[in-house]
């Protein structure tokens, strides 16, 4: 209960207060996107700029998603409590996922809706990627004070979907590559570790209970 109320308190401060650190986080968080777009329009992305841009945006979405998932384990393992930055990280992940999807639809596919629908149906890595994005949408919509208050306890249940989104995003990256290069495997391992930690944490023996049975 105390954990929940602390979390609620800090989350409502997110809406009301103007935390300069959080503001800085949003601004620096959007820097990679700004840089890649700048490199793109100034011809600094090499031979296949569309592909480089698309991949970079997707990769940053995954990175922010992983960062947002790392906040709670970090605290539970005795690290600093960064919970007030979790929403910013989650929203940055959503912004990058949106840019990634937009780049794919607009730049890569030239808004050819038939080709996009065929991709989603026929190509498993795109199906999985779309799943990850779709799952992030309700999470982003409910990442604000009024929605948190409105949903009450259901908010936490709903936001457990982030695990599904992270797993799908990591899988999307692995399925995209032709062989087994290290990079997508590292990201998948990070996501797996963060999810397994949650399982392990929920199953951990609780000292109070043990003394009670003794």
């Amino acid at each position: 209960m105390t954990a929940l109320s602390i979390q609620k308190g800090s989350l409502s401060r997110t809406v009301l207060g103007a935390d300069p650190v959080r503001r800085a986080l949003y601004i620096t968080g959007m820097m990679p996107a700004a840089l890649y777009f700048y490199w793109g329009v100034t011809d600094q992305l090499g031979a296949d700029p569309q592909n480089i841009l698309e991949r970079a945006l997707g990769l940053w979405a995954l990175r922010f998603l992983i960062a947002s998932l790392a906040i709670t384990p970090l605290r539970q393992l005795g690290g600093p409590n960064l919970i007030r930055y979790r929403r910013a990280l989650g929203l940055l992940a959503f912004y990058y996922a949106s840019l990634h999807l937009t780049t794919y639809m607009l730049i890569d596919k030239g808004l050819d809706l038939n080709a996009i629908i065929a991709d989603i149906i026929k190509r498993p890595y795109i199906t999985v990627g779309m799943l990850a994005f779709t799952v992030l949408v309700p999470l982003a919509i409910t990442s604000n004070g009024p929605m948190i208050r409105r949903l009450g306890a259901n908010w936490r249940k709903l936001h457990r979907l982030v695990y599904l989104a992270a797993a799908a995003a990591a899988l999307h990256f692995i399925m995209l590559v032709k062989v087994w290069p290290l990079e997508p495997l590292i990201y998948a391992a990070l996501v797996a570790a963060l999810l397994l930690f949650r399982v392990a944490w929920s199953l951990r023996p609780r000292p109070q209970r043990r003394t009670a049975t003794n």
Partner: protein
Amino acid sequence: MLIRKSTDIRPSEITDQSAYMRRREFMYGAAALGMAAALPASAFAMPLSAIKSPLSTDETLTPLKDVTTYNNFYEFGTDKDDPSKNAHTLTTKPWKVKVDGLVNKPADYDLDDLIKSIALEERIYRMRCVEGWSMVIPWIGVPLASVLARIEPQGSAKYVAFETLVRPAEMPAQKGFFQPLPWPYVEGLRLDEAMHPLTILAVGLYGETLPKQNGAPIRLVVPWKYGFKSIKSVVRISLTEKEPKTSWSLQNPREYGFYSNVNPAVDHPRWSQATERRIGASGGGLGGLFAKRHPTLPFNGYGDQVASLYTGMDLKKYY
């Protein structure tokens, strides 16, 4: 109509071609002065002279910079820029090609002997990668058929198998824990595909010897098949009776077949093959970022010449 005309003759097209021609003239001039090595294009490149071929396309060439920095050559790493960063370590002289199997003249041929006195031709071909991108590359090489005539396949030979060099000391992705493919990289063609006039062994591009990242010193080029069929840095050519194993179909038989003809009608589970992105076609910048995909043609547009090789075959089954 006006719009159409302007796309037919783009200024970039004219500039590219003429700049390229002038570059070659300059190269020859420089070579005559004995200062070829001082030119920056690539330290080891030597100028090659070649006769033009009616089999060349007149489409806009992909810039040399893109042809030499955007490569799939997994022996040097899986990123597109890995080969251009890592391939400089490759020793390409001396270079032996082992010729064996069902041939009358098996031997370890020195590269020069293998292609000696066969006229070098310039072949400007479209190159379509299975990943959905394409280039137009001015290769220099010899018809594979001429080399096969030299080594004399026996009557029972039905296929040609190829192997890439294995040399972990010079090919970084051939050592260590994470190796993307089993080595050697192997490829193969049916004998009639290998004998087809479009099929060449390339030893150069853009008027010079092959850059190492492009498969120096000798590689296969089969323009109507996906790029991975065009095996690089070849050290072995074997004539066989059985269909040879090929690296990508060994790695993932559901996705890659032996034939791997460019075919927009055969869908790939990873990439739509209906369209392609022409690398470097719109001059970079915003143009490159917003370049439109264009339709992929059956047999990469070489259907008139090669479709008859596959008469009666179900190309959806033999993909």
